[in-house]
């Protein structure tokens, strides 16, 4: 069990991590999801012991380790830039941690060979074992770095973007394979990635990290369905949730979106007193939006097409809505010419409302009304729509 509590890292004025608290149980994969610069690598370095935290504690099975030397912690780290030992062959690289005096137990030469060949097969590097690092491609080096960690029996496994440089086929296969292996392992795994899809796919729990703070730490489905703020909404899902500025109108309940001719009426499932007032951020998932023909019933917004990206079963269509870009997912193949005017239907879409000032808290969910004309007249006193 890995427990990180209130971990803060400051470099002078710069706060790289602020009060990060998370935990991971044996066999659990916790994804640390965040854009580059969010503090993912800093967090992993602190846990490894390569950097001392400014404050906070790290413990393994209840034993505080933040004062322990990094080489004693038995923490396996896969560095985002691989960092193979340039003067050692692939085999020697992978055997290196097993030959350490600090390894949890002694490994016989035969066992070392067996462990390496088993892991090498899984990673498809079994034919490269005698090569030197400079003879390998980027993807191969990444797999060797991964292999060097997987042969071990660490107290914690830390993966810093472990499959980001692999080709798509191998990445897809390894994601599942690693999930299978690591879920069965008697140690916890932290998996840092900037890829929301990868995080949701591989993890038991996801910690969304942004600007050094954990915005939400929850199961993948919660992260996806109930993001606590814009920061979380923007990183989960492929493509991620559309977030655009809007203004909330209390009566009749609706939200005014930039570019929409009239406010979108909302059906509210939760209590009204928790509503943020005025300017809000509106989040809507790409699959919740549709392109409709003029004259179709319901609430629609004019937009112009920016791009269509076909991906087999779906097409991701990017549209321009006044100052905002929205992405929506349509089944099948669509090839709408660029700049073609279209109408976007919001009806029936689940909409998340985030309060603007505290973008990491105060999310509410609503549903836009379906086919109702009841609330469609906008009050004339409406302020012009705010953007930005």
């Amino acid at each position: 069990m890995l427990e990180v509590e209130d971990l803060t890292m400051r470099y002078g004025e710069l706060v790289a991590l602020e009060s990060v608290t998370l935990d991971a149980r044996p066999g659990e994969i916790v994804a640390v999801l965040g854009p580059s610069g969010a503090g993912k690598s800093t967090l992993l370095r602190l846990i490894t012991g390569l950097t001392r935290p400014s404050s906070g504690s790290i413990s393994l099975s209840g034993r505080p380790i933040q004062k322990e030397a990094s080489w004693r912690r038995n923490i396996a780290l896969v560095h985002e830039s691989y960092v193979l030992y340039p003067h050692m062959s692939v085999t020697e690289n992978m055997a290196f941690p097993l030959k350490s005096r600090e390894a949890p137990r002694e490994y016989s030469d035969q066992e070392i060979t067996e462990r390496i060949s088993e892991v090498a097969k899984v990673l498809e590097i079994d034919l490269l074992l005698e090569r030197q690092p400079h003879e390998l491609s980027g993807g191969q080096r990444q797999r060797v770095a991964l292999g060097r960690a997987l042969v071990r029996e660490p107290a914690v496994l830390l993966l810093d973007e472990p499959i980001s440089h692999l080709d798509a086929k191998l990445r897809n296969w390894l994601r599942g394979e690693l999930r299978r292996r690591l879920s069965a392992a008697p140690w916890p795994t932290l998996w840092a990635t900037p890829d929301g899809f990868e995080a949701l796919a591989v993890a038991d729990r996801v910690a969304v990290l942004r600007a050094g703070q954990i915005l939400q730490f929850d199961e993948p489905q919660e992260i996806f369905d109930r993001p606590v703020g814009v920061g979380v909404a923007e990183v989960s899902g492929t493509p991620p949730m559309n977030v655009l500025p809007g203004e909330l109108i209390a009566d009749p309940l609706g939200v005014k979106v930039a570019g929409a001719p009239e406010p979108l009426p909302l059906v509210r499932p939760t209590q009204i007193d928790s509503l943020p007032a005025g300017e809000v951020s509106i989040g809507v998932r790409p699959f919740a939006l549709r392109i409709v023909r003029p004259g179709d019933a319901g609430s629609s917004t004019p937009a112009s097409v920016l791009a269509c990206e076909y991906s087999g079963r779906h097409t991701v269509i990017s549209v321009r809505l006044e100052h905002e870009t929205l992405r929506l997912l349509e089944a099948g193949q669509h090839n709408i010419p660029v700049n073609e005017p279209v109408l976007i239907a919001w009806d029936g879409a689940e909409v998340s409302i985030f309060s603007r000032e505290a973008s990491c808290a105060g999310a509410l969910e609503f549903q836009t009304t379906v086919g109702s004309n009841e609330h469609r007249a906008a009050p004339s006193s409406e302020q012009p729509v705010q953007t930005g």
Partner: protein
Amino acid sequence: MIEDARPRKILRTLGLIAIVIAFVFPVYWLLSFSFKPERLFFDLPPVWTFDPIVTEWVNTFRTLKLWETIINSIIVAGGSTLLTILVGTPASYSLARLRVRGKTDIMLFIIASRMAPAVALIIPFFLIYQFLDLLDSHIGLIFAYSTFNMALYVWLLTVMTRELPADLEGVAEADGYHPFQVFLRIGLPLMRPSIIAVGVLAFIFAWNEFPFALLLGGRTTETLPVVAARSLSAGGVEWARLAVISTVMVIPVAVMVFFLHKQIVRGLSMGAVRG
């Protein structure tokens, strides 16, 4: 492009031949002087063919006890290079790869100690050595050479060692190795080409060093440059003897560079250690 290839190749070869001649000819000229009868030295046009004689070689070795001088040179240059490598390598590694307080100041101090001309240091050295009774001793010269060689060695090696892949130490520590073991098992093997390259450079500097050897050394520690310089006197220049000693001085450096040139090039470029 294909038609171009032949003439271009010929031109390139001719160019290379010219460069080789420009560099090798002086060495040949020096060597030929040591085997030439003295009367032919300054003939114009130069005499290219002659019966080589070894009289001067035999004489120089016998009358000047050149073997002793060679051994002195080897002890002093080799000893100071060894000392420099032993002390300078861990220093460079630490300055390049570890968190050392005041790193920049130390580096500046190191380079500054190299800025003063040797002459400016000789008098203090002489007085200190007189006090410590280190004049005319091998160990004294070894220490003196190590001071100026250390600066060069540490400065160059530190800059080169910085070029090793970042985070090697972090990853090796996570793999369960104490920083000292990381130095031995990761740092040292990767620094080897640079150590050899800079070590050869330090050896050459020590081997050719003159003012310290002249003033701090003495009868029992005479090195080759000192003896060579004695061929130039008010009474004239003993060309043949100078040629013999100079040839002797060139040989070890040439041999060393010949056998280590691959390592030297690798060390100076650090190209082969990217991981």
